[in-house]
């Protein structure tokens, strides 16, 4: 097909601003699916996505549309709504020439929308502005149009006013897509280069790669090479997503579709990789892809240690369709066997957690999230660590660096005070404040990721009665006054409880932790000191008083069986605990401490 008549685009929208509904209307209008099929929001293929009202996996669908007497091929590439999936979003956007930016006429511009719009611009996408839900009584399209002009520079006249629900203005929007968005560049005669922007694993067909062909073409039975991994495969099936997966014989330049090539493991496919022809390979792969960066880490332990293999199986299954999630087994003397898991961000973590709950019946305890740190060693080398226990001897460390993000909070103006207070406590530095309109303000901060990974969003929501939204984007590692705090139980440091924190918060956080620990470690026959230390220096101390009285007053003949049972139970209670030196700590105690943060 002539690339002039191909349009590849994404829809960018905040959760609930109507992205999926708009996609469904487009699919109907182009006759790709029927209204009945659209009922279940076609693009969302996983239960979870539908329930959360967001999409996790980029998906793509091909539509035919007649405009100005010409048949166009429209490829709609779906993107997740949250910038935690920065990587997924960037992959999807890189496969597009344009993006439709949807803003709810009753809600206005939200932080996530801003972040995704920036990303689209960075990726070189042309943006079409859309104000949705204009039919609602609470709609303020004029006000929202002003915001869009202000934030994105989309002039009022360029905005499409639609109602995805009723279909109002959607045809005009599709016309606009054909008219306003650029076509793919025609590189039909160049060697094959196709970008893998997503992949998933199918039980029967193996790995399915979502691709966008940038030059040359892909053909059935073609011998292909993955330029990143240097593996070769033979294409067994090519196709396009319409109402169903529709096989085709070739995918030409500019087209979007899927490739199946007998690939068994999802791990063999690196998203962002370039597929080329094995006999006539391209010189270089497609550029411009961001690698996924796991910034948030959390430990998952099975509630019951015997469930460890089950938990592993569950994680393996999860990685089948989530390439950006990682897990590595680890053993803590305190907590037993578990996995350290890496996530793109907080929402990603939540989704994995929910999927785990839904798709497996393993009881898990999850520790409070932490971030990745960068260390400059005195020998000049740079190292990344994900866990405080990986911190090398500090005498070898020249600099400790923590991840910073650009944080954007959009809030009603009357909540500015509360937001300022919270951000100050969380070491965030205000960069600029910008009024979207007289009642809403966008505040941009430079913030340490560690301060916002835990309980920050909830607090922002609380402060603003649910009206504020936030988003963040990783900007880099920077030197910071970080310290490692150790928790000593009866003078023995407990690995699992060590923390890397900013010096200014070390004492308060350490103290909170030992106070919690004090509540959850049962008393012993001796006093147990609980200490917080930085290096060798104790900065806080609590203690667990010993048992004072634990003896059955009466034990005569008739009580023996019952009493033995009671004592046995007492002993079993002891056995279930982990020994830290001579102190017995119930695993549940650790869990409760870690689970709820500090």
């Amino acid at each position: 097909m002539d690339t002039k008549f191909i349009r590849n685009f994404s829809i960018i929208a905040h959760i609930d601003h109507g992205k999926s509904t708009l996609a469904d209307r487009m699919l109907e209008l182009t006759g790709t699916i029927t209204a009945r099929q659209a009922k279940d929001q076609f693009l969302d293929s996983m239960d979870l996505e539908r329930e959360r009202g967001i999409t996790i996996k980029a998906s793509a669908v091909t539509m035919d549309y007649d405009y100005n007497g010409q048949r166009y091929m429209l490829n709609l590439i779906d993107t997740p709504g949250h910038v935690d999936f920065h990587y997924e979003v960037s992959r999807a956007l890189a496969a597009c020439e344009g993006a439709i930016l949807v803003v709810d006429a009753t809600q206005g511009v939200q932080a996530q929308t801003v972040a995704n719009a920036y990303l689209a611009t960075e990726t070189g996408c042309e943006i079409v502005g859309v104000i949705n839900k204009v039919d609602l009584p609470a709609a303020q399209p004029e006000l929202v149009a002003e915001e869009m002009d202000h934030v994105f520079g989309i002039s009022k006249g360029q905005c499409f006013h639609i109602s995805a629900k009723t279909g109002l203005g959607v045809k005009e929007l599709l016309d606009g897509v054909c008219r306003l968005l650029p076509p793919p560049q025609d590189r039909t005669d160049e060697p094959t280069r196709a970008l893998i922007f997503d992949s998933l694993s199918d039980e029967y067909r193996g790995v399915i790669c979502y691709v966008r062909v940038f030059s040359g073409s892909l053909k059935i039975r073609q011998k292909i090479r993955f330029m990143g991994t240097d593996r070769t495969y033979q294409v067994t099936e090519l196709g396009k997503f319409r109402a169903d997966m529709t096989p085709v014989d070739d995918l030409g330049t500019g087209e979007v579709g899927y490739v199946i090539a007998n690939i068994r493991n999802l791990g063999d496919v690196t998203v962002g990789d370039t597929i080329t022809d094995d006999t006539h390979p391209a010189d270089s792969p497609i550029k411009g892809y961001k690698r996924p960066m796991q910034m948030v880490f959390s430990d998952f332990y099975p509630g019951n240690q015997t469930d460890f293999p089950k938990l592993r199986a569950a994680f393996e299954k999860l990685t089948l369709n989530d390439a950006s999630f990682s897990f590595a087994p680890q053993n803590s003397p305190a907590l037993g066997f578990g996995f350290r898991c890496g996530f793109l961000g907080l929402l990603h973590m939540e989704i994995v957690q929910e999927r785990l709950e839904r798709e497996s019946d393993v009881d898990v305890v999850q520790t409070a999230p932490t971030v990745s740190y960068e260390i400059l060693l005195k020998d000049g080398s740079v190292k990344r660590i994900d866990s405080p226990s990986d911190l090398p001897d500090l005498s070898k460390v020249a600099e400790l660096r923590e991840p910073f993000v650009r944080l954007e909070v959009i809030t009603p103006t009357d909540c500015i005070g509360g937001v300022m207070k919270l951000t100050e406590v969380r070491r965030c530095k205000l960069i600029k404040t910008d009024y979207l309109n007289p009642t809403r303000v966008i505040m941009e901060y430079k913030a340490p990721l560690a301060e916002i990974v835990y309980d920050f969003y909830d607090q922002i929501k609380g402060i603003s009665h649910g009206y504020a939204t936030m988003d963040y984007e990783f900007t880099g590692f920077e030197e910071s006054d970080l310290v490692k705090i150790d928790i000593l139980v009866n003078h023995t440091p407990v690995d699992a409880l060590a923390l890397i924190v900013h010096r200014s918060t070390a004492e308060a956080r350490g103290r909170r932790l030992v106070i919690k620990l004090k509540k959850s470690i049962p008393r012993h026959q001796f006093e147990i000191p609980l200490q917080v230390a930085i290096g060798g220096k104790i900065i806080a101390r609590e203690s667990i008083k010993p048992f004072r009285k634990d003896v059955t007053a009466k034990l005569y003949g008739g009580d023996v069986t019952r009493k033995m049972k009671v004592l046995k139970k007492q002993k079993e209670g002891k056995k279930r605990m982990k020994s830290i030196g001579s102190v017995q700590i119930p695993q549940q105690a650790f869990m409760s401490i870690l689970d709820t943060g500090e």
Partner: protein
Amino acid sequence: MTCRGTQRHTQPVGLYVHVPFCQAKCRYCGFYSEPIGPHDPQRLVLALLRELDLYRQVESIRTVYIGGGSPTVLPQDLLVDLVRMIAARYPRIEEFTVECNPSQTGHGLLGRLREAGVNRVSIGVQSFHPHELELLGRCHNVKQIGQAVGQAKAGGFDNVGIDLIFAIPGSTIESWRSCLESAIALEVQHVSAYSLSFEQGTPLDKSRQEGRLQVVNEEMDRDMYQLTIQTLQEAGFDHYEVSNFARPGFACQHNIGYWLNRPFIGIGPSAASYWKGRRTTNVADIARYITDIESGFDPVVEIVVPTGLDRLCETAVLNLRMRDGIDLERFAEETGCDAMDVFAEPIRLHQGLGLIGIDADRVRLTDEALPIADSVLCDFTDIESVRQDWTIQSVPN
């Protein structure tokens, strides 16, 4: 129902008789008893004697303990008859105790019991403070305590024991000290002092759960316990078990039988027995007990057969409650195992913490361990690894 005692027994055996009647239920009491009102005490006593018939050939009964409930609630003649029948049946009884309620010892009862063969009385004093007696729901007053002890002595008893309860809600170290002093002033031979426990389902426990009691905290409970030990020892009592104190030669032989894990026969509703290697419990229902016995059915409702390993553990736990602890020689003789070997691990652990002491032939809890004995004893409730060369003797009888 077959005869349960056909063989000769040489090891001393205890006999416990449960009289499940009370004038009024004490608010803290978790034992089985009922108001005597609707029941026919004579029928019960006949049933007791009939159950006892099952053991008629057990010649080795050395100790008898009639407890309850309140045995002294029985009509005087009936109680005296019961004692006579038992005494007549087992001529080699060395210690014969009857539990007495201080309000029920008049009318010459104690003298008659002494004549009938009882040689020890245990008086349920509990407290010397009227408000505490009231809180516990006891039906006697302070004056009756002195009278009861006086009657016992006058009746010819030279072995009188009293029971006391400490850590009663609202009590203080001083109030408990005065109790101990009053107890010493009675010049009795034996004192049992129990820390109040809130038994599930009792009215006192309910009050506690409802937050209506000023419960003694653990620290003060411990102080009171230590005060008990110190005060009674200074007054010449031997501390011979967690809660028991006696003047030399007056330790309760019947109870020592329990702590040596020796067999015993229990008769009456809800009574427990450890006989022929089985721990059994009778039905806790007076009417059912009587009908069962009368119609020739076994009133046993629960049977537990401890394994050889169970027996090792039970013996160790029970022995360790005594200040004399585990007599290694006796333990080896009775179980076929060396306690130092079988319990090497908990002994080592707690010795390290200063909670267990070992001398030439004994393993015992240290003074330090006593207030927290359960946290030590629980480690003697199972055996991590059983060695092939241990030959654990089966339970005697």
